[in-house]
């Protein structure tokens, strides 16, 4: 059981800190002129962050398919990244990726 005062203090500090992080640039956006160079840099933010969000979870996951050294998630993710260049449909990518993982697990257990 988490003490209520302890919980509320943590949540309060997390809320204040998170809103400051999320809002600091947005709050002053009308006062700051963003140079074209900086705007160009912003286009790199997805490339800098999204791979770091997903790669460790896929790579360090210990799967069940021994033939793929338990790295079926990592391999399927790489394969789906390639497929994305030809078929840019989010639902298709998720559906096919999950289907391949299900199939890999099924065949790996057989």
């Amino acid at each position, binding site marked *: 059981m*988490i003490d*209520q005062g*302890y*919980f509320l203090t*943590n*949540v309060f500090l*997390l*809320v204040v*800190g*998170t*809103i400051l*992080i*999320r*809002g*600091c*640039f*947005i*709050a*002053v*956006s*009308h006062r*700051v002129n*963003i140079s074209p160079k900086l*705007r160009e*840099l*912003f*286009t*790199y*933010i*997805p*490339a*800098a*962050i*999204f*791979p*770091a*969000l*997903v*790669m*460790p*979870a896929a790579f*360090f996951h210990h799967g069940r398919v021994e033939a793929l050294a338990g790295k079926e*998630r990592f391999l*399927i*993710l790489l394969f*789906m*990244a390639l497929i*994305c*260049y030809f078929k*840019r*449909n*989010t*639902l298709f*990518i*998720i559906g096919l*990726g*999950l289907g391949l*993982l*299900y199939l890999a*697990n099924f065949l790996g257990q057989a």
Partner: protein
Amino acid sequence: MEQFKLGFRSIIPIISGIVPFGAVMGSAFAEAKLEFWQAMLMNVTVYAGAAQLATTDLMKLNAAILVVVTTGLIINLRFLLYSAAMSPYLKTASPFIKFICAFTLTDQSYAAMTANVDSFKSNEEATQFYLGTAVSMGLAWHASVIAGFVFGNFAPASLSLDFAIPLSFVALLIPTLKTSKHKAIALLSSILSLLFYSLPMKTGLIVTALISIGAAWALIQPKQGA
């Protein structure tokens, strides 16, 4: 309004990735023996899944407040970059809209926004699109957290639905890799994230992001003598 609807719809395909994560979050709240109102208070006000998951776990262990808050805020530091990237679109927005956009800034909403950024004719259209993603994302997230709290982690393990999260980010990332430089930064970030994975307090993510952004900055500088 058209852009709002497009934004709302853009999240629907990735809901399959949001729901399992929300269910895990809801069941983690229940396992930590939080009251329903406590879980919802944290979920609505902090509104950052990864940070909530890590800090709930730390609170369960009765970790020092400094450790809990620092861990949560370090995980959330990536929002600083999203905030900077969103700011040009919100230049002329009212303070209320700015607050709503900042408060609802998530990986998924930002990703959906960047994947569609070429289709906006004005900042107003971009803002409307973003608000659509935020409403859609909020509904999916809060509903799945409530369901996870009430029913436990209901997603069948055999379906591996948690894998929909990385898949959805891949699907949203690829359209933003428009040049070979963008692809190089994505590759660098992938490699660095694996190298820095074991850094404490999940700082690997932000270290990777900062180094990758630094590399991007170096890449976009004009070549000497050019």
